[in-house]
């Protein structure tokens, strides 16, 4: 999060070599693979927030490569990391934070160094029409509003704590939600006046929810790292997917979903 320059560099490297980390052999095999195109099934473990974009990118990849099937396992990053350390077979892991990625790299499961491919910032989600007139992060200190934040145990909650601390605001939430989706449900139902969630979640929630960007969000940009796995059953397919994510096409799709370039 704090090393954005490095992250940008990494994503460039990623586009060239996957997360092979400059392994010449891997690059060669990528080139070779593109001649005939990858086939078989590629299994991607991805953070739940990537569901819509990755599903779309997966379909494009399947269209471009006849004989390739992209299969996803979307879940919370920590659940995915646990599954991987327990030996779940996968080709690619896309985490919503560095911490869960390091669980996987520490276990020696990653093929090379992970690279940051996109980022997410917090936004204030309010019900359509913003009935409580929320304007900025400062409103989270107002006792009379019904407010939701993410629980400190989950990534968006940790990020929220960071922005509150940086802004010097003592939040007065009524509930600490177990995940972003739960927080958004309450916004959609109009049961809370505002919730602090990620920009992508606001986009995904559609018309029932409005997003309010706020400057303090820059204090907690959440980077998404990605890697192929050392034990990948389909390394060629894995690289093809990683390349697509790093490509201009992939980055545009991510931006449309509310993500921003790392």
């Amino acid at each position: 999060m704090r090393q954005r320059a490095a992250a940008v560099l990494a994503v460039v490297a990623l586009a060239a070599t996957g997360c092979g980390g400059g392994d010449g052999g891997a690059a060669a095999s990528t080139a070779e693979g593109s001649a005939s195109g990858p086939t078989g099934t590629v299994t991607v473990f991805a953070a739940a927030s990537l569901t819509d974009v990755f599903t779309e990118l997966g379909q494009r990849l399947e269209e471009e490569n006849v004989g390739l099937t992209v299969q996803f396992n979307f879940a919370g990053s920590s659940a995915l990391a646990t599954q991987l350390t327990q030996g779940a077979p996968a080709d690619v892991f896309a985490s919503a934070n560095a911490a869960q990625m390091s669980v996987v790299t520490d276990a020696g499961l990653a093929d090379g160094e992970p690279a940051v491919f996109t980022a997410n910032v917090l936004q204030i989600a309010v019900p359509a029409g913003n009935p409580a007139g929320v304007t900025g992060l400062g409103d989270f200190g107002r006792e009379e509003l019904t407010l939701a934040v993410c629980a400190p145990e989950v990534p968006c909650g940790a990020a929220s704590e960071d922005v509150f601390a940086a802004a010097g605001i003592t939040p007065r939430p009524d509930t600490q939600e177990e995940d972003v989706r739960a927080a958004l449900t309450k916004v959609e139902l109009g049961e809370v006046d505002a919730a602090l969630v990620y920009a992508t979640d606001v986009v995904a929630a559609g018309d029932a929810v409005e997003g309010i960007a706020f400057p303090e969000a820059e204090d907690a940009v959440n980077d998404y790292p990605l890697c192929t796995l050392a034990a990948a059953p389909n390394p060629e397919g894995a690289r093809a997917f990683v390349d697509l994510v790093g490509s201009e096409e992939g980055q545009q799709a991510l931006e449309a979903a509310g993500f921003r370039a790392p």
Partner: protein
Amino acid sequence: MRRERTPAPLLVPAALAVAFLVLPLAGLLVRTPWSQLGTLLTAPGVGQALRLSVVSATLATLVSVVLGVPLAWVLARSRARGRAVLRALVTVPLVLPPVVGGVALFLVLGRQGILGSWLAETTGITIPFTTAAVVIAETFVAMPFLVISVEGALRGADARFEDAAATLGADRWTTFRRVTLPLVAPGVAAGAVLCWARALGEFGATITFAGNFPGTTQTMPLAVYLALQRDPQAAIVLSLVLLVVSVATLLLLRDRWLGRGAAA
């Protein structure tokens, strides 16, 4: 009492069932970080969550008994036409994913809900994100267990005792209080225990309708779930605490209360 040998066709599946139920528990015990137990247990919030769990589960059970026993009576005894439909409706919370149940509670009791909006306008009271909401969510999910169990007891009880009471001058309410209820007391107790246990472990409807805030709405299952996000070891310890408390409570009640009922 004479003991007979259990026939093998029963013994083998029974043993499998025990293994199936107990092994995950053993897994928890094996993985428990015993050395850190003290630190994890005395961590702030654990006692609070535990107290909140026990209090709200007990309140939910009380509400369930007060409302559920009469409902069970209606299901078992009344000759009203829509009884089959009513029974099906009662079991809805059993099959509904609890999170959906929580959303449904919002739609009725939330501040935008059918009743909730009226309540907020007239009294200024909003229910979600309060301890009352925890009790309501737990009651919603756990009451069917009590209702079904008491209805079974009522169907099993000899209705002719109620006839006898009527010939002794007891109206239906007196009969219910002085004859029917004492007759089905073991069934009510068993149902209350089931209901309490279910309420104690309730997660989905609670976290949806009541949210999660330490001290007000964060019960043990919520604390366990969130601990699992950050520190699985702590989650194991918390689960163990919940387990010990519930098993201890049930055993205590059984000795004190159910045991006597069964002997009579």
